[in-house]
């Protein structure tokens, strides 16, 4: 056929197709005129039922067993064993599925008839039967059961539990699953996978098409392990490149490729972590309605799996941070970095109330004999109950809470809770309106009420030092506040009528963290003293007759006093004035005065004591980075951890009858960000790392343009190195220590850091390649480490008798000498160009200013005017020593970054004021000095209620 003739055929063909089918024949006849051959040619092409057959309609490698063109031709009819075949319900990758009736047991089953090729390979059949028996032993409410194997006319057939309802795949065609439902479903999938993994069974082909959601919301995972059962023997390999891929086969079509783990895609051996990957894909897709890794071709999809990160920005905004982090952990490309056990996902998903069996188990087992471990609930479902589980036999019996409830789920920050004596309502602080107010919420339901929004009060925002208190008669809420516009530097305790609100009145002057004794006859509170130290004061119930129970000690913070149940002791938290409250301890002192005794001592944090009958609740992180709730029995028993999961539990408070406990759940997002140092309005923050790795405290060396940072991405806080953009991170230190505040030596050969390895805080040095970590000093370190320009010495702030002061340690011999600086000097930064150490110096409450000395302690730049207040701040010289980045983090205002040029006519210029909840953690200059990189910490907090059974 000539090209011209073919063009004519094509044109007539398409023109005919554009017409009504009934008119085509006439059209073709007319168009071809007398050319009979052409008419036949066109008509024979038009006669091909390509569309009806979907001929070549699915990509070759995407086609396992596509819907049958003519199901009738191979339709199974009649009986298979005791089963009456009813209808065909699906044609899938592993054969045709029928619905059938088990005539003996009078139940419907699904029968999956396997490819004929099975029957021809006796070895394969034997292996199939063996595997199927193992799978049949999987008996779990969320796994579709395998009942048995039958012979269906010479072809092996699996008899399976018939599960009503749509597959998740078809549900997802209509869009994402509402978050709450998605997480409930995810939770059930976790249960199913965990049960299977415990038996050593890996699904291998988990995907939405293999998950069914029954009309009652119950999730069933289908085809467990079938991918392997139906596979040929794994020890025969056709292709060396595909060594172990015989695990999964025909069904692995394009759709499935999206859920393949990187190791599957590479043809490597798979284990349960492949299911964890697929689980992450499924959860992601439920929440977003889109596949985590998708491409129009297999090659694109695989490239996405191997190289790309799923777009977390498409997750619903309300997705709990725990779930985001879980997804990250499930979708780690390297199986070794991936979530290890699917059971670990549970804490991040929250224990959603679909599991009454486990709840009742914990009730019977733990309430009487066991140790109930209250599981964390990282998730939010409005008002839905969240169950706590897990009973571990133990002789010590802490109060066991069987149920937990997320009380608040807003994007606002809720914190500082108090619970009414009758346990029916809570008061808390929230910035839902913008400014922080006192809110009240009844646990039984109803909208929260803002009690102070219309009052002329500025409320103290630092939750960690107090929180609210409800009077024993339930009629007043104590809150730290001052009148708006007040020039007063400190906050007082005010009383707000409760629970309905009313006009607040001032109660005690300059007082924080006030607590009533249970009979209301006495109060205890903190009189804040900044660097002079905080005092703990006891007074009569009306505020009269105050006397210091614990005198102020310089350099010490004492917070969070709490009465013992019998009123004989006051418990409180104390720490030397370090950057992050580590180390800290919980002590108690007789309410009548006397010696204090330590209740909890740790090199890390132990705070928020809540004495109760039989023991003390508190928050601590003895083994990790984040705070959990702990319980220490009064007797000899060991402390026991009550919560697990993502986020920090803080500020526990308990109802008078001990049946309800409310706590703040804090989640941090810590990421590295960069900002150009420009003053033309272009100083915008740009993220470098995501917020889930806990990246903080970057330090860039201009010698190598490498960065060292502190990160909790591995689960414990260690040092990592990366390029100057934070990319390609590599671990520098390991172990379960907390390694932080790293600083490159001037030659970039070493990194100094602060660590609690070995059980004491101290300065450590490690070579930049990770070799030879060694302790330099054994000392608490308040904030930053800074090297002398010659690399011989390191300056830092150390707690002294009354307030911090600067110290310098010699790197070679570890000899320390103190720098004669005024009390309270901290946050040193040694200029790379000469003998100038910038530091911060407090002057009066809440006021901290930038000062300079040389290494002999003599003042430099003494004529410079006062800097802006840089309270809670820190400093970093630029690499050329001409400019200084100065961060101020005032307790009740937004953090700001200033650029200081001591030699300039305009020495102080504000680079940026950060949003309210953002706190910088560590700052460094890029090698060229054009930008700053800092750790950006954002804090989210909500309230959680734990309940004991009746």
């Amino acid at each position: 056929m000539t090209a011209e003739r073919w063009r004519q055929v094509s044109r007539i063909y398409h023109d005919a197709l554009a017409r009504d089918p009934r008119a085509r024949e006439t059209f073709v006849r007319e168009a071809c005129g007398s050319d009979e051959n052409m008419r036949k040619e066109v008509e024979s092409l038009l006669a091909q039922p390509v569309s009806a057959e979907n001929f070549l309609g699915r990509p070759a490698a995407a086609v396992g067993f596509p819907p049958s063109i003519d199901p009738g031709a191979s339709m199974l009819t009649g009986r298979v064993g005791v089963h009456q075949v009813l209808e065909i319900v699906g044609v899938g990758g592993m054969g045709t599925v029928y619905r059938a009736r088990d005539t003996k047991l009078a139940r419907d089953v699904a029968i999956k008839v396997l490819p004929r090729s099975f029957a021809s390979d006796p070895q394969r059949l034997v292996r199939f039967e063996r595997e199927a028996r193992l799978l049949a032993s999987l008996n779990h409410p969320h796994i579709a059961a395998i009942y048995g194997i039958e012979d269906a006319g010479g072809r092996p057939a699996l008899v399976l539990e018939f599960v009503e309802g749509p597959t998740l795949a078809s549900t997802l065609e209509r869009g994402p699953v509402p978050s709450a439902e998605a997480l409930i479903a995810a939770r059930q999938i976790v249960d199913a996978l965990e049960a299977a993994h415990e038996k050593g069974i890996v699904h291998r082909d988990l995907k939405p098409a293999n998950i069914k959601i029954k009309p009652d919301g119950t999730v069933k995972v289908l085809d467990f392990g079938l991918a392997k059962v139906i596979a040929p023997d794994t020890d025969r390999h056709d292709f060396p490149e595909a060594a172990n891929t015989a695990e999964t086969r025909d069904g692995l079509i394009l759709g499935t490729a999206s859920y393949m783990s990187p190791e599957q895609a590479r043809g490597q051996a798979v284990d349960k972590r492949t299911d964890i990957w697929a689980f992450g894909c499924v959860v992601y897709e439920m929440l977003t309605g889109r596949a985590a890794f998708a491409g129009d071709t297999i090659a694109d999809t695989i490239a996405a799996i191997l190289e790309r990160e799923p777009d977390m920005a498409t997750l619903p905004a309300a997705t709990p941070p725990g779930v985001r982090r879980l997804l990250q952990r499930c979708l780690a490309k390297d199986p070794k970095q991936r979530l290890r056990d699917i059971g670990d996902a549970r804490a991040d998903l929250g224990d959603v109330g679909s599991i009454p069996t486990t709840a009742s188990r914990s009730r019977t087992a733990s309430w009487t004999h066991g140790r109930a471990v209250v599981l964390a609930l990282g998730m939010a479902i409005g008002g839905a109950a969240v169950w706590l589980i897990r009973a571990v036999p133990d002789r010590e019996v802490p109060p066991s809470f069987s149920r937990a409830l997320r009380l608040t789920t807003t994007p606002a920050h809720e914190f500082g809770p108090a619970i009414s004596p009758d346990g029916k309502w809570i008061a808390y602080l929230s910035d839902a309106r913008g400014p922080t107010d006192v809110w009240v919420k009844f646990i039984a339901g109803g909208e929260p009420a803002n009690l102070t929004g219309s009052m002329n009060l500025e409320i103290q925002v630092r939750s960690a030092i107090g929180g609210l208190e409800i009077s024993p008669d339930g009629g007043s809420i104590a809150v730290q506040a001052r009148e708006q516009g007040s020039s007063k530097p400190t906050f007082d305790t005010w009383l707000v009528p409760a629970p309905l609100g009313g006009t607040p009145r001032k109660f005690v002057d300059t007082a924080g963290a006030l607590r009533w004794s249970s009979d209301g006859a006495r109060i205890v509170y903190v009189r804040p003293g900044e660097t002079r130290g905080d005092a703990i004061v006891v007074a009569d119930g009306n505020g009269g007759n105050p006397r210091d129970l614990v005198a102020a000690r310089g350099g010490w913070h004492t917070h969070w006093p709490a009465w013992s149940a019998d009123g004989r002791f006051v418990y409180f938290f104390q720490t030397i004035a370090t950057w992050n409250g580590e180390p800290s301890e919980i002590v108690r002192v007789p309410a009548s005065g006397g010696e204090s005794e330590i209740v909890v001592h740790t090199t890390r944090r132990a705070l928020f004591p809540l004495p109760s009958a039989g023991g003390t609740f508190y928050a601590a992180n003895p083994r990790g980075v984040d705070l959990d709730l702990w319980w220490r029995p009064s007797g000899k028993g060991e402390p026991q951890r009550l919560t697990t999961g993502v986020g920090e539990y803080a500020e526990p408070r308990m109802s008078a009858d001990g049946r309800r406990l409310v706590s703040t759940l804090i989640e941090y997002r810590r990421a590295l960000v960069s900002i150009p140092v420009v003053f033309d309005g272009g100083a915008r923050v740009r993220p470098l790392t995501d917020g889930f790795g806990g990246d903080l405290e970057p330090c860039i060396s201009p010698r190598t343009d490498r960065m060292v940072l502190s990160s909790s991405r591995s689960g414990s806080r260690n040092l990592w190195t990366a390029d100057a953009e934070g990319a390609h991170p590599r671990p520098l230190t390991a172990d379960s220590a907390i390694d932080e505040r790293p600083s490159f030596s001037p030659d970039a050969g070493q990194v100094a850091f602060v660590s609690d390895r070995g059980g004491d805080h101290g300065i450590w040095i490690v070579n930049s390649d990770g070799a030879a970590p060694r302790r330099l000093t054994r000392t608490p370190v308040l904030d930053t480490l800074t090297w002398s320009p010659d690399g011989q010495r390191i300056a830092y702030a150390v707690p002294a008798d009354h307030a911090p002061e600067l110290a310098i340690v010699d790197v070679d011999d570890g000899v320390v000498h103190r720098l004669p600086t005024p009390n309270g000097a901290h946050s040193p930064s040694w200029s790379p160009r000469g003998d100038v150490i910038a530091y911060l110096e407090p002057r009066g409450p809440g006021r901290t200013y930038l000062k300079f000395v040389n290494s002999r302690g003599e003042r430099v730049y003494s004529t410079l005017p006062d800097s802006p207040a840089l309270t809670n701040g820190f400093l970093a010289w630029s690499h050329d020593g001409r400019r200084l980045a100065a961060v101020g983090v005032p307790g009740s205002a937004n953090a700001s970054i200033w650029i200081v040029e001591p030699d300039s006519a305009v020495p102080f210029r504000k680079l940026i004021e950060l949003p309210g909840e953002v706190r910088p953690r560590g700052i460094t200059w890029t090698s060229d000095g054009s930008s700053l990189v800092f750790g950006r910490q954002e804090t989210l907090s909500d309230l959680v209620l734990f309940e004991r059974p009746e």
Partner: protein
Amino acid sequence: MQGERAHRSVEATELVNEAYMRLVDARYMNWQNRAHFLAMAARLMRRILVDLARARHAQKRGGGARPISLDDLLLSSEKGEDLVALDDALDALAKVDERKTRVIELRFFGGLSVQETAAVLRISSDTVMRDWKLGRAWLRRALRE
């Protein structure tokens, strides 16, 4: 080994892997544009499938296993078309209309969408659809003859 190979049908996973392995190499060869890469992918997929099918034919003639066919791999029609025959038909179509062969190769073996196919071949989506319809009709007829 050849004997063992004969016992096995092609695993889609292996296809995926083999195609991917070859593609990865292609990527390292520094293909400049994505269109070329996609076209390459489709061509590779076709070759892998057809090579396997031919191997099956050879095994069959040597006595033993069934040939791989579209029935096994691609279509569950009882009468399914032979991949080798499809390959031959595509070659024949290429002599008549090279572009339609490319369209079918990209769509069927490469799994590309209409838009992607259009982009790779630098033609409009309408043209792709027309080529796709007529090309398939031509091939089906060829396979039935």
